[in-house]
């Protein structure tokens, strides 16, 4: 059992080391300036050249990203239904009102929350555990790494279809295995009941997303200097204390950013649900983005655009709050 002073010493060691690591918000790296080579002066000609070189990329992004986004956004305020484009008049906020007035909107929102939270927490925990395990050296480590990273290379829609068959109660492997080990007496119609269907799509998403956390966390873990662990071992820190006072503090920037990215991605990830349940049964596994696809399929691009703007606004607000909330923790005090 380490004493209080030992704990402080371990923590301080971690902080000092973390402050020195590049990319973790610590001390600025010192740039070596070669003798006889000075920074060129900024001139109008140089500025023109920089602009010229940047222009193709800027024009490309403007034409293919921002223009369609802005052009698409205006549909949200117009009557824009593909079944009849003879009337595309401005309708103000009517499309937004229609989105909120839909009786399914409440279910769609709560499903989105279940989808995001239910997926992200297990993905983080399992991904972290796998990364810790893969950090150790053992035989065939490379092979295990490749196997674990494999799901990330498959399309979400395809995974949806695979899991749709696996969760099929009559022909699927899930019910069959559970029956064989005696956990259930008769096949469960997973995708036929709204509650079990939501559970099934979240399970599939956990399986899919664990990989990304493993990749990111493993990369971050490999940047922790071995000396830190040696020092903490000398100080008598146990495994749990090492995890919470060295490993996690050291990689918290990566963790925070990965969680932020994943939340945005999971929110915007309709492929899997679309392939697996199509939002059914009875529209009860729809999340916001699958709901948007459903509206698009009806040809109502106006309402779908309104929903798209709601999604963008929600994610922007979320990203700002998340970054503000984690900023203080990420900054390492001197």
């Amino acid at each position: 059992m380490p004493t209080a002073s030992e704990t402080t010493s371990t923590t301080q060691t971690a902080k000092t080391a973390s402050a020195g690591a590049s990319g973790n918000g610590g001390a600025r790296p010192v740039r070596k300036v070669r003798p006889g080579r000075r920074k060129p002066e900024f001139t109008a000609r140089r500025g023109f050249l920089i602009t010229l070189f940047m222009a193709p990329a800027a024009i490309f992004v403007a034409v293919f990203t921002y223009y369609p986004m802005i052009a698409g956004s205006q549909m949200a305020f117009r009557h824009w239904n593909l079944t009849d484009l003879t009337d595309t008049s401005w309708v103000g906020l009517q499309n937004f009102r229609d989105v909120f007035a839909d009786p399914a909107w409440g279910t769609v929102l709560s499903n989105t929350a279940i989808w995001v939270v239910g997926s992200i927490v297990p993905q983080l925990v399992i991904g972290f555990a796998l990364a810790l395990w893969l950090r150790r050296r053992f035989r065939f480590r490379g092979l295990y790494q490749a196997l674990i990273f494999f799901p990330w290379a498959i399309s979400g829609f395809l995974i949806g279809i695979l899991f749709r068959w696996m969760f099929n109660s009559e022909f699927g492997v899930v019910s069959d295995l559970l029956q064989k080990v005696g956990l259930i007496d008769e096949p469960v119609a997973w995708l036929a009941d709204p509650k079990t269907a939501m559970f099934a799509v979240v399970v599939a998403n956990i399986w899919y997303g664990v990989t990304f956390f493993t990749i990111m966390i493993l990369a971050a873990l490999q940047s922790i200097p071995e000396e830190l662990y040696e020092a903490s071992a000398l100080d008598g820190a146990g495994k749990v204390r090492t995890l919470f006072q060295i490993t996690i503090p050291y990689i918290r920037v990566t963790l925070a950013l990965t969680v932020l990215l994943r939340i945005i991605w999971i929110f915007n990830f309709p492929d899997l649900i679309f392939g697996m349940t199509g939002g059914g049964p009875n529209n009860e596994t729809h999340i916001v983005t699958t709901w948007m696809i459903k509206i698009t399929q009806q040809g109502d691009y106006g309402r779908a655009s309104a929903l798209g703007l709601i999604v963008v606004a929600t994610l922007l607000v979320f990203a700002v709050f998340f970054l503000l909330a984690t900023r203080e923790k990420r900054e390492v005090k001197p």
Partner: protein
Amino acid sequence: MRRRTAALALGTAATMVLTGCSSMSGSQADGTVTLNMVESLTNPARTDLIKGLIADFQKQNPKIKVNLISPPTEQADQKIQQMLQSGSGVDTLEVRDTTVGPWSNNGWIYDMKKDLTGWKGWEAMTENAVKASQDAEGKTYFVPYGFYGLSVFYRTDLIKEAGFSKPPASWDELLEQASAIHDPGKRKYGYAFRGGANAQGNATAIIEAYVADEIDPADGFKLKNGKTIFSAPEALDAMQTYLKLFKDASPKSSVSWGYPEMVEGFSNGSTAFLLQDPEVIATVSESKSIKKDQWSTAPLVAGPSGKTVQPLATAGWGVAKGSKHKKEAVELVEFLSEGEASTDFTKTNSLVPILKSAAEDPFYKTGPWSSYVTMTENPDTYLNVSQPRGVAWWAEWQQRADADIQKMVLGKTTPKELLAGWDTYWTEKRQQEN
């Protein structure tokens, strides 16, 4: 010097882009016309077949070249919409009964009526095909290449074991036979219920069968008295039978079964009855779980009056309004809709044919295909009724009806409430239309 090089490079690039574009579509100096043709229900085998047919067409018409564009099926109709909206780039295209409404409404597709007046191809076509080529106002936006129609796929061995001598001829008999075979404990299921995507198709088929005597032949969702088919008392009997078919004879998970699960259920030998399109004949023929003598098809089951309605779905070839080569584009449509080209297309794609001559073809006369010929040859029992699949709100209706059917089988609504909702929906839509 540097400026001259830059100008030269720019000039060369511009020339390449312009010549590249011009070779994609349009006419060349020697009078050769290039047509852009877009397909919608793309699959690799079908694309190869169309390419072969195009090669034959080009041989017959050396001054016309056809450039086939094959977007993936899932996005095809949206891609075609974007192309049509831009006003150029498409000459001949695949038009479906579900897309013809909105596309003609937006003025994107061309009425070929005048061009096809006096065309000899009409005489060779079945009554159904001629009918399907005209909309309510008599305009011809597409010429059908074939039909997708329902028949009953059934297990000859299982019905025999259950004590029945012949396949069901009515929905009641189907319920009786399927319930007798259904034994989930042994993983034997009676009926492959469609609860997932496009569930409304089979549900409206049973309603139409039950109201067959009163149905309006010009609109399958309307009765002769002008009311919707969902308002008839027989529609309630139909839905109650249908719900019973789910409860007593179908696998539990079929609440979410779409096309793949239904076909798999029948092909893997676990399910005795399936209502599907003729394209499934090819899939089931390749099954390793059931042999050729263990299954067959029967004509679509009838309602209490002994009649039923063939809920035919169709698609065909049409011409874009923005095309600068309408004459040549129509010639291509004519070529694809007659003779060997049409027969090859329907046979290879397992479609109900558009040509009268198919009834004499041994391919259609025997085996699983014969039930389709029986239905075509007996229009008094298997009524030819136009389905309102071309209305602008069809996609919205499909999604709404699919969700309602799932609600009903999950016990969250009753057949009566479901039908009342559908009746109000169609009555209001028709009123708005007028």
